[in-house]
């Protein structure tokens, strides 16, 4: 088996150490380790993190291979420092059967760039009416543990209750896209001062908050855990904080774009800023950062949502919702959380690797950087500064809100079970 020595890395941003990988495993951590028989990666004080884990990725395959495939999506993930992604179920056909989740799982295995853990739909066809065969998806080769109708809300309270209860039998979790559908008919952007001026249909914060409030109470009532996707408002933070203080088993994620961008950007009517849930206000952004820092929000998840150029090169109302995020997530977190002093790198590792793996019950990822652990690692040049250039993305889509924006940090190496998927910032 091949050996790799990562020399002089700041492990979790702390002490400078060498890390020796043999085969798929970390075999030594220390200083002045011998490089005999090993390929050497000179880290020069770069930050070494556990391989990132994304609990919320849209890989689009099967069905929308014009925007992303499992292969291009996992290449984008590796470029961004990820070693595992959870693939959302809103494909065509919907991942609501054992057959579809096994297909996605197999494509992930074949890609070789990162592990792909399929998410199963909660309801048949994401229609919110009839439970999908959750047990069959769990028992399949894909071993599904996270279920979500993401893109749509499980809005029927009874269906949601049953799903929360049912997945307890096999340690599953329901990840809710919190959006009260009636309150968001025709919604185009955050409802507030900016939408009033722009004449775009409002997506009120209460449409998210009311569903989260209901679902944490349901989770408490039936004794289940529940995960909240892409939490976006200050009010949602308050509800989750209250729920956790009551001992309710709730976890929550925030996207990088909700940590950085606000609805003021919509004044450009450029659909690259159109996303669901929508960009909110400065007050929300600050509340989300604070909540991620204090643990009210558990993790960062990208909601990487690729769309073909024509779906964004049009008028706002006609445009698709969503942004790509895998290749910029760590940079945005560095800017909004690390460089603001809200989190250290150990905190980032917790929120972008350990916790997402724990919520999704994914083994072999999110582990400490220690002897005997699988060598899933990300090396970050945190001193790097550069403008985002979508032309360099590994993703098949280019719908990034950060084009031309200066962001810090660049992933130079990613290791998946000891094998380099990214070397010197380029896909291996």
């Amino acid at each position, binding site marked *: 088996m091949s050996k790799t020595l990562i020399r002089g890395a700041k492990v979790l941003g702390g002490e400078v150490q060498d890390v020796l990988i043999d085969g798929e495993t970390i075999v030594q951590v220390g200083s002045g380790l011998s490089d005999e028989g090993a390929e050497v990666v000179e880290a020069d004080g770069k930050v070494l993190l556990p391989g990132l884990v994304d609990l919320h990725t849209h890989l689009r395959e099967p069905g929308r291979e014009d925007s992303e495939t499992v292969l291009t999506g996992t290449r984008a993930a590796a470029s961004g420092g990820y070693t595992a992604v959870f693939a959302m179920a809103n494909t065509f056909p919907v991942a609501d059967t054992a057959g579809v989740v096994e297909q996605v799982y197999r494509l992930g295995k074949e890609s070789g760039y990162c592990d792909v853990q399929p998410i199963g739909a909660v309801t048949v066809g994401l229609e919110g009416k009839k439970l999908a065969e959750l047990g069959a998806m769990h028992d399949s080769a894909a071993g599904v543990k996270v279920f979500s109708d993401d893109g749509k809300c499980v809005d029927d309270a009874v269906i949601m209750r049953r799903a929360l209860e049912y997945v307890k039998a096999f340690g599953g979790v329901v990840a809710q896209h919190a959006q009260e559908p009636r309150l968001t008919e025709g919604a*185009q952007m955050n*409802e*507030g*001062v*900016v*939408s*009033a*001026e*722009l*004449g*775009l249909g*409002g997506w*009120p914060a209460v449409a998210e908050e009311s569903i989260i409030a209901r679902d944490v109470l349901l989770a408490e009532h039936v004794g289940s855990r529940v995960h909240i996707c892409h939490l976006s408002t200050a009010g949602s933070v308050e509800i989750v904080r209250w729920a956790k203080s009551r001992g309710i088993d709730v976890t929550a994620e925030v996207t990088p774009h909700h940590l950085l961008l606000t609805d003021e950007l919509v004044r*450009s*009517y*450029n659909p690259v800023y159109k996303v669901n849930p929508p960009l909110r206000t400065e007050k929300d952004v600050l509340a989300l950062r604070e909540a991620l820092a204090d643990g009210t929000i558990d993790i960062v998840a990208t909601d990487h949502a690729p769309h073909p150029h*024509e779906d964004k*090169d*049009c*008028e*706002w*109302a*006609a445009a698709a919702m969503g942004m790509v995020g895998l290749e910029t997530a760590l940079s945005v977190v560095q800017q909004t959380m690390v460089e603001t002093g809200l989190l250290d790198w150990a905190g980032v590792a917790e929120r972008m690797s350990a916790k997402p793996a724990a919520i999704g019950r994914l083994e072999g990822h999110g582990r400490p950087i220690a002897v005997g652990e699988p060598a899933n690692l990300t090396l970050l040049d945190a001193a790097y500064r550069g403008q985002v250039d979508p032309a360099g993305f590994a993703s098949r889509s280019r719908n990034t809100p950060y084009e031309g924006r200066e962001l810090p940090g660049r992933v130079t190496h990613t290791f998946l079970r000891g094998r380099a998927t990214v070397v010197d910032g380029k896909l291996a």
Partner: protein
Amino acid sequence: MMRHLISAADLTRDDAVLILDTAEEMARVADRPIKKLPTLRGRTVVNLFFEDSTRTRISFEAAEKRLSADVINFTAKGSSVSKGESLKDTAQTLEAMGVDAVVIRHGASGAPYRLATSDWIDATVINAGDGTHQHPTQALLDAFTMRRRLVGRDAGLGQDLEGKRITLVGDVLHSRVARSNVDLLHTLGAEVTLVAPPTLLPIGVENWPAEVSYDIDSVLAKSDAVMMLRVQRERMNAAFFPTEREYSRRYGLDGERMAKMPEHAIVMHPGPMVRGMEITAEVADSDRCTVVEQVANGVSVRMAVLYLLLGGNESAAAQ
């Protein structure tokens, strides 16, 4: 002057007064036996209408023809747009034919802004109404009408609407006319009051340069002009108000309410009116109601906008 007209909020006070003064010159042309100027001879203007709006299109068309422009009318129905062609492709196709200006009406808020700021086309873009966002020429013709009636045809030249008290009543939430009027009237120094049931006011209206009231009767006596906005009957199906009759009783303008207005005050409406809903026939047909004047003024104002945006630099009436 700017190159495009997208939002009333983009106009400075001096821009707006120049447009209104130019419109007065254009109005004199309409009084001549031959109502035509050679100003835009050889220039091509396309009226690109993705939404049905016969009155606005005809008004622009009349303005363009009086300035001797070559006019192309494009309506989305029955065109390649209904077969899935995008706004970008439609605009580029028209520009390839050598269009100097695009007058666009679109159901999506921001579509004209997108057309003007993307690299899709080079032509001048004039917003003829986009979604629930803006309808700047409507606001200009309304301001023109107010200035004539409240300041005077000749006395108004060079003047704005400083201190005039203007009340807008009705469906502010879904109204591009309301948004444009609030922006322009504020720029021109008027004091604006919005009256509507709370359901028909947008969240965020508190940041607009306007007062808000839920009670029409309390503001009528303090209004120099009352503009009634159209209220679609279907709105009651989405619970914006309980019934048509209740809306009329609480927010409609009838003869009794009109009598509370000052002697000189006018009643305006952007049309089309829903008689019996927001306005009674008695008010609509009274001398104080300027609906028909607004239509005539619309042609003069649109002539002025086309003339100024397409590079008119001599006095219009001198030609």
